[in-house]
Protein backbone atom coordinates (compact mmCIF):
# COMPACT_ATOMS: atom_id res chain seq x y z
CA UNK A 1 0.00 0.00 0.00
CA UNK A 2 1.32 3.44 -0.97
CA UNK A 3 1.66 5.82 1.99
CA UNK A 4 0.45 9.39 1.62
CA UNK A 5 3.28 11.94 1.28
CA UNK A 6 1.84 15.45 0.82
CA UNK A 7 3.82 17.65 -1.59
CA UNK A 8 3.52 20.81 0.52
CA UNK A 9 5.45 19.43 3.52
CA UNK A 10 9.13 18.82 4.28
CA UNK A 11 10.50 15.63 5.85
CA UNK A 12 13.34 14.07 7.83
CA UNK A 13 15.02 10.74 7.17
CA UNK A 14 13.67 9.66 10.57
CA UNK A 15 10.07 10.01 9.28
CA UNK A 16 8.97 13.33 10.75
CA UNK A 17 7.08 15.86 8.64
CA UNK A 18 7.29 19.65 9.03
CA UNK A 19 4.81 22.34 7.99
CA UNK A 20 5.57 26.08 8.06
CA UNK A 21 3.03 28.19 9.93
CA UNK A 22 4.14 31.82 10.09
CA UNK A 23 7.23 32.11 12.30
CA UNK A 24 6.54 28.71 13.79
CA UNK A 25 6.47 25.20 12.45
CA UNK A 26 4.34 22.15 13.16
CA UNK A 27 5.62 18.58 13.08
CA UNK A 28 4.37 15.02 13.36
CA UNK A 29 5.24 11.58 12.07
CA UNK A 30 4.53 10.50 8.50
CA UNK A 31 1.82 8.08 7.39
CA UNK A 32 4.60 5.62 6.51
CA UNK A 33 5.98 5.79 10.06
CA UNK A 34 2.51 5.40 11.57
CA UNK A 35 1.86 2.33 9.41
CA UNK A 36 5.21 0.82 10.38
CA UNK A 37 4.51 1.34 14.07
CA UNK A 38 0.97 -0.02 13.92
CA UNK A 39 -1.61 0.88 16.56
CA UNK A 40 -0.19 3.82 18.51
CA UNK A 41 -1.17 3.72 22.16
CA UNK A 42 1.10 6.11 24.09
CA UNK A 43 3.09 9.29 23.63
CA UNK A 44 5.49 10.97 25.99
CA UNK A 45 5.80 14.71 25.37
CA UNK A 46 8.01 17.38 26.92
CA UNK A 47 6.14 19.09 29.75
CA UNK A 48 7.90 22.46 29.52
CA UNK A 49 9.12 24.75 26.73
CA UNK A 50 12.58 23.53 25.97
CA UNK A 51 15.32 23.86 23.38
CA UNK A 52 16.34 20.86 21.26
CA UNK A 53 19.15 20.30 18.81
CA UNK A 54 18.36 19.00 15.37
CA UNK A 55 17.71 15.25 15.64
CA UNK A 56 17.58 15.30 19.45
CA UNK A 57 14.84 13.19 21.01
CA UNK A 58 12.07 15.32 22.53
CA UNK A 59 9.72 12.47 23.37
CA UNK A 60 8.62 8.95 22.62
CA UNK A 61 5.90 7.33 20.62
CA UNK A 62 4.79 3.84 21.45
CA UNK A 63 2.69 1.32 19.57
CA UNK A 64 1.47 -2.02 20.86
CA UNK A 65 4.63 -3.64 19.61
CA UNK A 66 7.43 -1.05 19.83
CA UNK A 67 8.69 2.25 21.20
CA UNK A 68 10.45 4.89 19.09
CA UNK A 69 12.03 8.27 19.75
CA UNK A 70 10.43 11.45 18.50
CA UNK A 71 13.15 13.70 17.13
CA UNK A 72 13.31 17.46 16.69
CA UNK A 73 13.38 17.98 12.91
CA UNK A 74 15.40 21.20 13.31
CA UNK A 75 17.20 23.05 16.10
CA UNK A 76 14.25 24.66 17.84
CA UNK A 77 12.29 25.49 20.93
CA UNK A 78 9.16 23.40 21.32
CA UNK A 79 6.35 25.77 22.28
CA UNK A 80 3.28 23.55 22.24
CA UNK A 81 2.29 19.91 22.00
CA UNK A 82 -0.93 18.28 20.83
CA UNK A 83 -2.64 17.14 24.02
CA UNK A 84 -5.46 15.66 21.92
CA UNK A 85 -3.16 12.89 20.72
CA UNK A 86 -1.94 12.41 24.28
CA UNK A 87 -5.60 11.66 25.14
CA UNK A 88 -6.26 9.70 21.96
CA UNK A 89 -3.04 8.34 20.40
CA UNK A 90 -4.97 6.60 17.60
CA UNK A 91 -5.34 10.06 15.99
CA UNK A 92 -1.76 9.64 14.79
CA UNK A 93 -2.76 6.50 12.86
CA UNK A 94 -6.02 8.00 11.61
CA UNK A 95 -4.81 11.43 10.52
CA UNK A 96 -1.00 11.75 10.80
CA UNK A 97 -0.75 15.05 8.88
CA UNK A 98 -3.83 16.65 10.44
CA UNK A 99 -5.38 16.01 13.84
CA UNK A 100 -2.49 13.70 14.65
CA UNK A 101 0.13 16.49 14.62
CA UNK A 102 2.56 16.27 17.55
CA UNK A 103 4.47 19.49 18.30
CA UNK A 104 4.65 23.16 17.40
CA UNK A 105 8.10 24.72 17.52
CA UNK A 106 10.07 27.92 16.89
CA UNK A 107 13.14 27.10 14.77
CA UNK A 108 16.47 28.68 15.69
CA UNK A 109 16.88 29.56 12.03
CA UNK A 110 13.82 29.46 9.77
CA UNK A 111 16.00 28.94 6.67
CA UNK A 112 16.95 25.48 8.04
CA UNK A 113 13.57 24.40 6.66
CA UNK A 114 15.10 24.39 3.18
CA UNK A 115 17.62 21.75 4.27
CA UNK A 116 14.86 19.21 4.98
CA UNK A 117 13.85 16.54 2.46
CA UNK A 118 11.17 17.53 -0.02
CA UNK A 119 8.32 15.13 -0.81
CA UNK A 120 10.15 13.55 -3.77
CA UNK A 121 13.31 12.89 -1.74
CA UNK A 122 11.30 11.47 1.17
CA UNK A 123 9.28 9.27 -1.20
CA UNK A 124 12.58 7.89 -2.47
CA UNK A 125 13.69 7.14 1.10
CA UNK A 126 10.42 5.31 1.81
CA UNK A 127 10.64 3.31 -1.40
CA UNK A 128 14.13 2.16 -0.48
CA UNK A 129 12.87 0.88 2.88
CA UNK A 130 9.60 -0.74 1.76
Amino acid sequence: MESTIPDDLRYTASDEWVRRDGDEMVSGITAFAAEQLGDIVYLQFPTAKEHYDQGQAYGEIESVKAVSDLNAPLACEIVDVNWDVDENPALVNDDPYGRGWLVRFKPDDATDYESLLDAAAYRQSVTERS
Partner: protein
Amino acid sequence: MVPFAGFSMPLQYAGIIDEHRAVRQAMGIFDLSHMGEFRLTGPDAVAAVDLLVTNDVRGMETGQVKYTPMCYPDGGIVDDILVYRYADRMMLVVNAANIDKDLDWVRGHVEGDVVLDDVSDDTALIAVQGPKAEALLQQLTDLELNSIPYYHFAEGEVGGVRATISRTGYTGEDGFELYVAPEDTAPLWRRLLEQGEPDGLRRAGLGARDTLRLEAGYMLYGNDIDHTTSPLEAGLGWTVKFGENDFVGRGVLEGQKARGTPRRMVAIAMEGRAIPRPHYPIVRGEPVGSLTSGTFSPTFERGIGLGYVAASGPRPGDDIEIEIRGQRHAAQVVKKPMYRRERS
Protein backbone atom coordinates in the same frame (compact mmCIF):
# COMPACT_ATOMS: atom_id res chain seq x y z
CA MET B 1 6.16 -9.76 7.32
CA VAL B 2 8.88 -10.59 9.81
CA PRO B 3 11.35 -13.46 9.70
CA PHE B 4 10.64 -15.93 12.48
CA ALA B 5 12.53 -19.20 12.90
CA GLY B 6 12.97 -19.52 9.14
CA PHE B 7 9.35 -18.62 8.32
CA SER B 8 8.22 -15.31 6.91
CA MET B 9 5.29 -14.41 9.13
CA PRO B 10 2.88 -11.52 9.45
CA LEU B 11 3.22 -9.51 12.63
CA GLN B 12 -0.19 -8.09 11.86
CA TYR B 13 -2.88 -8.05 9.21
CA ALA B 14 -5.49 -5.38 10.04
CA GLY B 15 -3.76 -4.12 13.20
CA ILE B 16 -2.94 -5.79 16.50
CA ILE B 17 -5.78 -4.21 18.48
CA ASP B 18 -8.50 -5.11 15.96
CA GLU B 19 -7.17 -8.66 15.63
CA HIS B 20 -6.98 -9.04 19.41
CA ARG B 21 -10.57 -7.89 19.87
CA ALA B 22 -11.80 -10.17 17.10
CA VAL B 23 -10.36 -13.15 19.00
CA ARG B 24 -11.89 -12.03 22.32
CA GLN B 25 -15.32 -11.21 20.86
CA ALA B 26 -15.70 -13.54 17.87
CA MET B 27 -12.72 -15.48 16.51
CA GLY B 28 -9.32 -15.20 14.88
CA ILE B 29 -7.35 -17.50 12.59
CA PHE B 30 -3.59 -17.93 13.05
CA ASP B 31 -1.04 -19.68 10.84
CA LEU B 32 1.25 -21.43 13.32
CA SER B 33 2.98 -23.75 10.87
CA HIS B 34 6.36 -22.63 12.20
CA MET B 35 5.85 -24.69 15.36
CA GLY B 36 7.88 -27.91 15.57
CA GLU B 37 6.45 -31.40 15.88
CA PHE B 38 8.27 -34.59 16.90
CA ARG B 39 6.75 -38.06 16.63
CA LEU B 40 7.75 -40.86 18.97
CA THR B 41 6.69 -44.44 18.26
CA GLY B 42 7.59 -47.81 19.72
CA PRO B 43 6.70 -49.73 22.88
CA ASP B 44 8.71 -47.39 25.16
CA ALA B 45 7.52 -44.07 23.69
CA VAL B 46 5.32 -43.10 26.64
CA ALA B 47 7.98 -43.94 29.23
CA ALA B 48 10.64 -42.09 27.20
CA VAL B 49 8.57 -38.90 27.07
CA ASP B 50 7.70 -39.23 30.74
CA LEU B 51 11.39 -39.22 31.65
CA LEU B 52 11.94 -36.06 29.59
CA VAL B 53 9.17 -33.86 30.97
CA THR B 54 8.16 -32.65 34.41
CA ASN B 55 4.46 -33.43 34.02
CA ASP B 56 3.05 -36.96 34.29
CA VAL B 57 2.32 -38.39 30.85
CA ARG B 58 2.05 -42.07 31.80
CA GLY B 59 -1.52 -41.62 32.93
CA MET B 60 -2.62 -39.85 29.74
CA GLU B 61 -5.47 -41.40 27.81
CA THR B 62 -5.59 -41.59 24.01
CA GLY B 63 -6.84 -38.24 22.74
CA GLN B 64 -5.41 -36.24 25.62
CA VAL B 65 -3.00 -33.29 25.49
CA LYS B 66 -0.73 -32.04 28.28
CA TYR B 67 1.28 -28.85 28.62
CA THR B 68 4.63 -29.42 30.25
CA PRO B 69 8.10 -28.00 30.69
CA MET B 70 11.05 -30.12 29.61
CA CYS B 71 13.99 -29.46 31.92
CA TYR B 72 17.76 -29.77 32.13
CA PRO B 73 19.23 -31.66 35.09
CA ASP B 74 19.74 -28.29 36.86
CA GLY B 75 16.01 -27.53 36.63
CA GLY B 76 16.38 -24.91 33.88
CA ILE B 77 13.84 -25.17 31.08
CA VAL B 78 14.82 -26.66 27.70
CA ASP B 79 11.41 -25.76 26.29
CA ASP B 80 7.74 -25.69 27.18
CA ILE B 81 5.83 -28.11 24.99
CA LEU B 82 2.56 -29.87 24.34
CA VAL B 83 2.42 -33.68 24.54
CA TYR B 84 -0.23 -35.46 22.44
CA ARG B 85 -1.10 -39.07 23.16
CA TYR B 86 -2.35 -40.89 20.06
CA ALA B 87 -3.34 -44.58 20.12
CA ASP B 88 -0.08 -45.59 18.43
CA ARG B 89 2.32 -42.73 19.10
CA MET B 90 3.21 -39.59 21.02
CA MET B 91 3.58 -36.15 19.44
CA LEU B 92 5.58 -33.32 21.02
CA VAL B 93 4.81 -29.78 19.84
CA VAL B 94 7.80 -27.53 20.45
CA ASN B 95 8.60 -23.85 19.99
CA ALA B 96 9.84 -22.98 16.51
CA ALA B 97 13.03 -21.30 17.68
CA ASN B 98 13.91 -24.40 19.72
CA ILE B 99 13.37 -27.17 17.16
CA ASP B 100 17.04 -28.02 16.58
CA LYS B 101 18.01 -27.71 20.23
CA ASP B 102 15.04 -29.78 21.37
CA LEU B 103 15.63 -32.46 18.78
CA ASP B 104 19.23 -32.87 19.94
CA TRP B 105 18.09 -32.94 23.55
CA VAL B 106 15.32 -35.47 23.03
CA ARG B 107 17.51 -37.65 20.82
CA GLY B 108 20.21 -37.67 23.49
CA HIS B 109 17.84 -38.61 26.29
CA VAL B 110 15.25 -41.04 24.94
CA GLU B 111 15.65 -44.48 26.39
CA GLY B 112 14.36 -47.87 25.31
CA ASP B 113 12.68 -49.06 22.15
CA VAL B 114 11.63 -45.75 20.61
CA VAL B 115 11.75 -44.25 17.11
CA LEU B 116 12.01 -40.47 17.08
CA ASP B 117 11.13 -38.44 13.97
CA ASP B 118 11.15 -34.69 13.43
CA VAL B 119 7.93 -34.23 11.44
CA SER B 120 7.94 -30.42 11.59
CA ASP B 121 8.24 -30.07 7.83
CA ASP B 122 5.34 -32.48 7.25
CA THR B 123 3.06 -30.78 9.74
CA ALA B 124 1.30 -27.44 9.36
CA LEU B 125 -0.82 -25.81 12.05
CA ILE B 126 -3.80 -23.48 11.86
CA ALA B 127 -5.42 -22.18 15.03
CA VAL B 128 -8.99 -20.89 15.22
CA GLN B 129 -9.49 -19.17 18.54
CA GLY B 130 -12.40 -17.35 20.10
CA PRO B 131 -15.91 -17.83 21.47
CA LYS B 132 -17.34 -18.56 18.00
CA ALA B 133 -14.60 -21.03 16.96
CA GLU B 134 -16.52 -24.19 17.80
CA ALA B 135 -19.63 -23.08 15.91
CA LEU B 136 -17.58 -22.29 12.82
CA LEU B 137 -15.63 -25.55 12.81
CA GLN B 138 -18.77 -27.57 13.48
CA GLN B 139 -20.12 -26.36 10.13
CA LEU B 140 -17.08 -27.93 8.45
CA THR B 141 -16.76 -31.31 10.19
CA ASP B 142 -18.80 -34.41 11.02
CA LEU B 143 -17.01 -34.81 14.35
CA GLU B 144 -19.02 -33.88 17.44
CA LEU B 145 -16.82 -31.03 18.61
CA ASN B 146 -18.66 -30.53 21.88
CA SER B 147 -17.51 -34.03 22.82
CA ILE B 148 -13.85 -32.92 22.71
CA PRO B 149 -13.01 -31.53 26.16
CA TYR B 150 -10.41 -28.82 26.77
CA TYR B 151 -6.89 -30.22 26.23
CA HIS B 152 -8.16 -33.18 24.22
CA PHE B 153 -8.15 -33.92 20.49
CA ALA B 154 -9.75 -36.05 17.82
CA GLU B 155 -8.72 -37.10 14.33
CA GLY B 156 -11.03 -36.46 11.43
CA GLU B 157 -11.83 -34.17 8.53
CA VAL B 158 -12.31 -30.42 8.65
CA GLY B 159 -13.29 -28.61 5.47
CA GLY B 160 -12.47 -31.73 3.49
CA VAL B 161 -8.97 -31.97 4.93
CA ARG B 162 -7.53 -34.66 7.23
CA ALA B 163 -6.64 -33.08 10.58
CA THR B 164 -5.83 -33.56 14.23
CA ILE B 165 -8.40 -31.31 15.84
CA SER B 166 -7.13 -30.18 19.22
CA ARG B 167 -9.06 -28.11 21.74
CA THR B 168 -6.03 -26.11 22.84
CA GLY B 169 -4.67 -22.61 22.33
CA TYR B 170 -2.49 -19.76 23.49
CA THR B 171 -5.04 -16.96 23.66
CA GLY B 172 -7.13 -17.49 26.79
CA GLU B 173 -10.19 -18.23 24.65
CA ASP B 174 -11.90 -21.45 23.74
CA GLY B 175 -10.70 -22.64 20.37
CA PHE B 176 -8.99 -25.27 18.30
CA GLU B 177 -5.62 -26.00 16.81
CA LEU B 178 -5.70 -27.96 13.55
CA TYR B 179 -2.66 -30.02 12.57
CA VAL B 180 -2.76 -30.72 8.83
CA ALA B 181 -0.48 -31.66 5.94
CA PRO B 182 1.40 -28.65 4.49
CA GLU B 183 -0.32 -28.95 1.10
CA ASP B 184 -3.72 -28.73 2.82
CA THR B 185 -2.91 -25.50 4.68
CA ALA B 186 -3.79 -22.93 2.03
CA PRO B 187 -7.08 -24.56 0.96
CA LEU B 188 -8.17 -25.01 4.57
CA TRP B 189 -7.18 -21.43 5.45
CA ARG B 190 -9.27 -20.10 2.57
CA ARG B 191 -12.21 -22.37 3.37
CA LEU B 192 -12.23 -21.27 7.03
CA LEU B 193 -12.04 -17.58 6.13
CA GLU B 194 -14.78 -17.90 3.53
CA GLN B 195 -17.07 -19.65 5.99
CA GLY B 196 -16.11 -17.62 9.06
CA GLU B 197 -15.69 -14.04 7.92
CA PRO B 198 -19.43 -13.26 7.95
CA ASP B 199 -19.46 -14.32 11.64
CA GLY B 200 -16.46 -12.20 12.56
CA LEU B 201 -13.48 -14.45 11.82
CA ARG B 202 -10.37 -12.32 11.26
CA ARG B 203 -6.82 -13.18 10.37
CA ALA B 204 -4.48 -12.64 13.34
CA GLY B 205 -0.69 -12.33 13.39
CA LEU B 206 2.18 -12.73 15.82
CA GLY B 207 1.51 -9.33 17.39
CA ALA B 208 -2.01 -10.23 18.55
CA ARG B 209 -0.80 -13.67 19.57
CA ASP B 210 1.57 -11.96 22.00
CA THR B 211 -0.97 -9.53 23.52
CA LEU B 212 -3.54 -12.34 23.86
CA ARG B 213 -1.16 -14.78 25.55
CA LEU B 214 0.15 -12.13 27.93
CA GLU B 215 -3.36 -11.19 29.11
CA ALA B 216 -3.98 -14.91 29.62
CA GLY B 217 -0.73 -15.24 31.60
CA TYR B 218 0.92 -17.79 29.28
CA MET B 219 4.70 -18.01 29.25
CA LEU B 220 6.73 -17.12 26.17
CA TYR B 221 9.90 -19.18 25.93
CA GLY B 222 12.91 -16.91 25.48
CA ASN B 223 11.19 -14.07 27.36
CA ASP B 224 9.55 -15.39 30.51
CA ILE B 225 11.21 -18.78 30.76
CA ASP B 226 14.50 -20.18 29.48
CA HIS B 227 17.43 -22.37 30.55
CA THR B 228 18.07 -20.08 33.56
CA THR B 229 14.54 -20.25 35.00
CA SER B 230 12.86 -23.17 36.71
CA PRO B 231 9.20 -24.12 36.27
CA LEU B 232 8.62 -23.56 39.98
CA GLU B 233 9.74 -19.93 40.01
CA ALA B 234 7.79 -19.34 36.78
CA GLY B 235 4.57 -20.32 38.52
CA LEU B 236 4.37 -23.60 36.60
CA GLY B 237 4.42 -25.77 39.71
CA TRP B 238 1.13 -27.34 38.58
CA THR B 239 3.02 -28.95 35.68
CA VAL B 240 5.71 -30.53 37.86
CA LYS B 241 4.58 -33.89 39.26
CA PHE B 242 6.78 -35.57 41.85
CA GLY B 243 5.10 -38.95 41.46
CA GLU B 244 6.61 -42.41 41.34
CA ASN B 245 8.60 -41.86 38.18
CA ASP B 246 11.85 -40.04 37.69
CA PHE B 247 12.32 -37.18 35.22
CA VAL B 248 15.27 -35.05 34.16
CA GLY B 249 15.70 -32.21 36.69
CA ARG B 250 13.66 -33.87 39.40
CA GLY B 251 16.33 -33.74 42.11
CA VAL B 252 16.94 -30.01 41.79
CA LEU B 253 13.25 -29.18 41.50
CA GLU B 254 12.42 -31.23 44.59
CA GLY B 255 15.03 -29.22 46.48
CA GLN B 256 13.49 -25.98 45.21
CA LYS B 257 10.05 -27.16 46.22
CA ALA B 258 11.27 -27.93 49.75
CA ARG B 259 13.35 -24.81 50.25
CA GLY B 260 11.57 -22.33 47.98
CA THR B 261 13.00 -20.42 45.02
CA PRO B 262 14.86 -17.12 45.34
CA ARG B 263 12.46 -15.41 42.95
CA ARG B 264 8.97 -15.86 41.57
CA MET B 265 6.93 -14.62 38.66
CA VAL B 266 4.35 -11.88 39.08
CA ALA B 267 1.91 -10.13 36.76
CA ILE B 268 1.77 -6.34 36.83
CA ALA B 269 -0.60 -3.68 35.52
CA MET B 270 0.24 -0.01 35.07
CA GLU B 271 -1.81 2.71 36.78
CA GLY B 272 -1.22 5.29 34.06
CA ARG B 273 -0.75 4.91 30.36
CA ALA B 274 2.98 4.21 30.12
CA ILE B 275 3.77 0.84 28.59
CA PRO B 276 6.00 -1.71 30.29
CA ARG B 277 8.49 -3.68 28.21
CA PRO B 278 10.89 -6.59 28.82
CA HIS B 279 13.89 -5.80 31.06
CA TYR B 280 12.35 -2.74 32.73
CA PRO B 281 13.10 -2.71 36.48
CA ILE B 282 10.35 -3.52 38.99
CA VAL B 283 10.79 -1.14 41.93
CA ARG B 284 9.42 -1.10 45.43
CA GLY B 285 11.47 1.61 47.06
CA GLU B 286 14.44 -0.19 45.56
CA PRO B 287 14.70 -2.52 42.57
CA VAL B 288 13.11 -5.90 43.41
CA GLY B 289 13.13 -7.52 39.98
CA SER B 290 12.59 -6.92 36.31
CA LEU B 291 10.02 -7.56 33.60
CA THR B 292 10.31 -10.40 31.11
CA SER B 293 7.28 -9.43 29.00
CA GLY B 294 5.24 -6.26 28.66
CA THR B 295 2.83 -4.68 26.24
CA PHE B 296 -0.32 -2.64 25.84
CA SER B 297 -3.35 -4.72 26.75
CA PRO B 298 -6.18 -4.11 24.29
CA THR B 299 -8.70 -5.62 26.75
CA PHE B 300 -7.74 -3.52 29.77
CA GLU B 301 -6.47 -0.56 27.71
CA ARG B 302 -3.31 -0.16 29.75
CA GLY B 303 0.13 -1.61 30.07
CA ILE B 304 0.53 -5.10 31.50
CA GLY B 305 3.53 -7.34 32.03
CA LEU B 306 5.13 -10.38 33.60
CA GLY B 307 8.38 -10.42 35.51
CA TYR B 308 10.37 -11.95 38.31
CA VAL B 309 10.66 -10.46 41.79
CA ALA B 310 12.59 -11.62 44.84
CA ALA B 311 10.70 -14.27 46.84
CA SER B 312 10.23 -11.73 49.65
CA GLY B 313 9.04 -9.12 47.14
CA PRO B 314 5.62 -7.69 46.32
CA ARG B 315 2.46 -9.80 46.02
CA PRO B 316 -0.87 -9.32 44.24
CA GLY B 317 -2.49 -6.11 45.43
CA ASP B 318 0.82 -4.44 46.31
CA ASP B 319 1.74 -1.09 44.79
CA ILE B 320 5.00 -1.02 42.87
CA GLU B 321 6.67 1.12 40.26
CA ILE B 322 8.05 0.24 36.86
CA GLU B 323 11.11 2.16 35.77
CA ILE B 324 10.68 3.24 32.17
CA ARG B 325 13.71 4.92 30.63
CA GLY B 326 14.79 6.42 33.93
CA GLN B 327 11.35 7.47 35.17
CA ARG B 328 9.29 5.54 37.69
CA HIS B 329 5.64 4.93 36.86
CA ALA B 330 3.00 3.67 39.30
CA ALA B 331 1.84 0.10 38.85
CA GLN B 332 0.39 -2.76 40.83
CA VAL B 333 1.08 -6.47 41.20
CA VAL B 334 -2.09 -8.26 40.05
CA LYS B 335 -3.42 -11.79 40.13
CA LYS B 336 -2.50 -14.11 37.27
CA PRO B 337 -3.96 -14.50 34.77
CA MET B 338 -5.20 -11.00 34.18
CA TYR B 339 -7.73 -12.23 31.63
CA ARG B 340 -9.98 -15.18 32.27
CA ARG B 341 -12.80 -15.90 29.87
CA GLU B 342 -16.32 -16.38 31.12
CA ARG B 343 -17.12 -20.06 30.87
CA SER B 344 -20.57 -21.03 29.75
